[in-house]
């Protein structure tokens, strides 16, 4: 019964995070595009730009609101599901959360000003409001991610007789994983949303190559999405090194690496088998893993076999999620290079293959984000605070967690359906399709 309760708590938390993160990243990246379109309109006076800015603002309004309320749910759920964790961690991760509170506050204030102030503000003041929304989004995302990074590489305290003492919130916030995780998440947000929006317009461009509306939308979205996509593999490499150093079990799981060895191979693909301790069907690059993890082909990489079995995360799921994330990341980086070449040759809109590739990439960034969070969170199990507190020690004593889990599942599935319907009906279907502008 207790185990099942823990499972429901984990499912509810996972569901809430998976749901919230989609809206959170949209709330970070959409405002950037909306402000870019408005600035372009002010510069050029072209009507497509203001149409775009207003349409994207409408989308932002709907998605931001759902992100805000689902984020509120999360801040309570931390206590509802993991009270022992919050009792211990609250003082340590409270600082980034309060900073996040202010960043989010600014975002909400200036989003209200932006959405309802089109006719009331000077153009400069209106753009300024949009810029604050964009910055607030990036900052609040960054602060929250430092709190998660702390769970992976806890810092800023000592344990004395089971109590957390010598609390240092600064050391906690600037923990070893904070930098890599923040950069990785911000880039992921811009990449996923930029490519996602570009994909929607790519589909419409395939129908009407000349539409100035979709051309400009496509370009702005790519400008937000592709530079981030190009940088993401570098940030992923950095993140990988930190994980290799600080969370060897997670690192071994995401690589499907069982035997501790020098010249450890990098495995691409494959399905880890925890019974046999093998990862068959993988393409192996000799020494690749040692090089990636420690910058030295000869460096030994700890394998799962040297880690007690009860401290293994769910190896197969973590490995597969990691492979999915990396594959998508590489593909998006390739799209960025492809786009740059086409742009250079002034053939960005001419290549049907590129437009189709972008269209098929619409959901990929979001899938990569979900996969990446699966790696981060599942890869840390059985710990809620790496090496310090187990998830099973943190869960609420309240029985019957299946009920809130089912309730939130229904609620979120319903909301997702309505949001998709609304975005289709109010933002997409009414989009101009002809050349008349």
């Amino acid at each position: 019964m207790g185990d099942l309760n823990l499972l429901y708590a984990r499912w509810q938390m996972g569901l809430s995070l998976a749901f919230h993160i989609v809206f959170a990243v949209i709330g970070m990246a959409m405002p950037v595009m909306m402000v870019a379109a408005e600035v372009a309109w002010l510069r050029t006076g072209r009507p497509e730009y203001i149409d775009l800015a207003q349409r994207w603002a409408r989308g932002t309004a709907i998605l931001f609101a759902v992100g805000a309320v689902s984020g509120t749910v999360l801040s309570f759920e931390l206590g509802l599901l993991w009270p022992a964790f919050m009792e211990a961690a609250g003082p340590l991760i409270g600082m980034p959360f309060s900073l996040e509170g202010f960043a989010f506050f600014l975002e909400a204030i200036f989003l209200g000003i932006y959405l309802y102030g089109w006719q009331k503000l000077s153009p400069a003041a209106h753009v300024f409001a949009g810029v604050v929304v964009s910055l607030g989004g990036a900052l609040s995302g960054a602060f929250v991610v430092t709190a998660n990074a702390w769970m992976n590489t806890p810092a800023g305290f000592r344990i004395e007789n089971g109590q957390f003492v010598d609390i240092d919130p600064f050391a906690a916030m600037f923990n070893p994983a904070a930098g890599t995780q923040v950069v990785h998440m911000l880039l992921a947000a811009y990449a996923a949303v930029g490519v996602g929006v570009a994909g929607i317009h790519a589909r419409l461009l395939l129908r009407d190559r000349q539409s100035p509306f979709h051309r400009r939308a496509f370009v702005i979205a790519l400008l937000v999405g592709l530079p981030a996509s190009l940088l993401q593999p570098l940030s992923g490499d950095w993140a990988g090194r930190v994980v290799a150093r600080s969370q060897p079990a997670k690192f071994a799981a995401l690589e499907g690496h069982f035997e501790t060895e020098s010249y450890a191979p990098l495995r691409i693909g494959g399905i880890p088998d925890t019974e046999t301790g093998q990862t068959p069907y993988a393409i192996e690059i000799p020494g690749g893993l040692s090089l990636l993890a420690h910058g030295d082909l000869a460096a030994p990489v700890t394998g799962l076999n040297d880690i007690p079995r009860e401290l293994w995360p769910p190896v197969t799921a973590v490995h597969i999620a990691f492979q999915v994330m990396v594959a998508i990341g590489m593909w998006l980086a390739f799209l960025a290079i492809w786009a740059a070449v086409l742009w250079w040759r002034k053939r960005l809109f001419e290549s049907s293959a590129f437009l189709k590739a972008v269209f098929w990439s619409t959901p990929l960034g979001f899938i990569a984000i979900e996969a990446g969070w699966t790696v981060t969170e599942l890869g840390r199990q059985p710990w809620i605070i790496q090496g310090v507190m187990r998830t099973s020690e943190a869960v609420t004593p309240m029985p019957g967690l299946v009920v809130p889990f089912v309730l939130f599942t229904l609620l979120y599935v319903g909301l997702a359906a309505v949001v998709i319907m609304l975005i289709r009906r109010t933002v997409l279907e009414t989009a101009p399709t002809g050349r008349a502008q």
Partner: protein
Amino acid sequence: MIDAVVLLSVVLVLSLTAYALLGGADYGGGLWDLLASGPTAVRQRATIAHAIGPVWEANHVWLIVAIVIVFTGFPRAFAEVSTYLHVPLLLVLIGIVLRGSAFVFRAYGPDDPRHERLWSRVFAMASTATPFFLGVIVGALTEGRLPASPQGSFTSVYLTPWLTPFSLSVGLFALVLFGYLAAVYLTLEAHDAHERAAFRLRALLSGAAAGVVAALVLLLAASDVRGALIASAWAVPLHVATGASALAAFAFLWVERYELARLAAATQVVLILWGWALAQYPYAIRPHLTLTDAAAPVNVQVLLLQILGVGAVVLVPSLLYLFGIFGPRGNQDPNENPSISH
């Protein structure tokens, strides 16, 4: 030197005050959406949506500020409250999700009356249920029946401590009080005399109802809580001031001086909240967890206060800017009033 715990508690109550005055009134708006009636019903709903539109997301953040203060500054209280009041907190969360989502779904949805009616209904019902359960939670913290350990049956640990006449009456009080506050505010947002008269009537009725429910709350209170509310040194002046502002709000509504009525009603709500906070002090959860016992280490409290102070420097001008743009009477729909457009 003032104790950091006291200072942090004051800041917590300040943010709860802001939430009550701003977010509370948004909930109240939802209540009047639900109860809109008479010849101006359609316009009442439009006025409510219009008044809430630009500000509700910002108003809602006060709750997040409060919760962050609790879990950073009073982590033990946060852990206990979220363990033993899981059920009403869950109901509050579902209400918050449905309220916010329904509001934007309605505002940004297609021009389809069925769509509007559905989300209007969801918005109004969620706006009504949420403050009720928020009030129940406050009641439960005050009444002192939360267990100290999770030993016992589900019902005795997770339900009966808050399913009490007293806590339920506090829930009702919160709902009526927020409705009253919203009705008073809305008299300033109304577009014409008929609509204003409707909100004035609602303000007077809900104000009277708030008085009745307040008496009920006091009647149902346990003797020590009632004692703290009535017999403390600060109680008499506070009650006199609360009563005076209530009467003033009534008088100003009666003579249709709405700006002054708003001031008086807001003062009344502030005094009620601070009266509760004084009666609750020094407890986070009556009767076994004091604020000091629940508090984080001193360096964390001081740091949190510093962050809140610096944050306020950025926040307060931003909020004033927001309310300056969309304050009452300055908020004609831009589409109706193109003369102010650029």
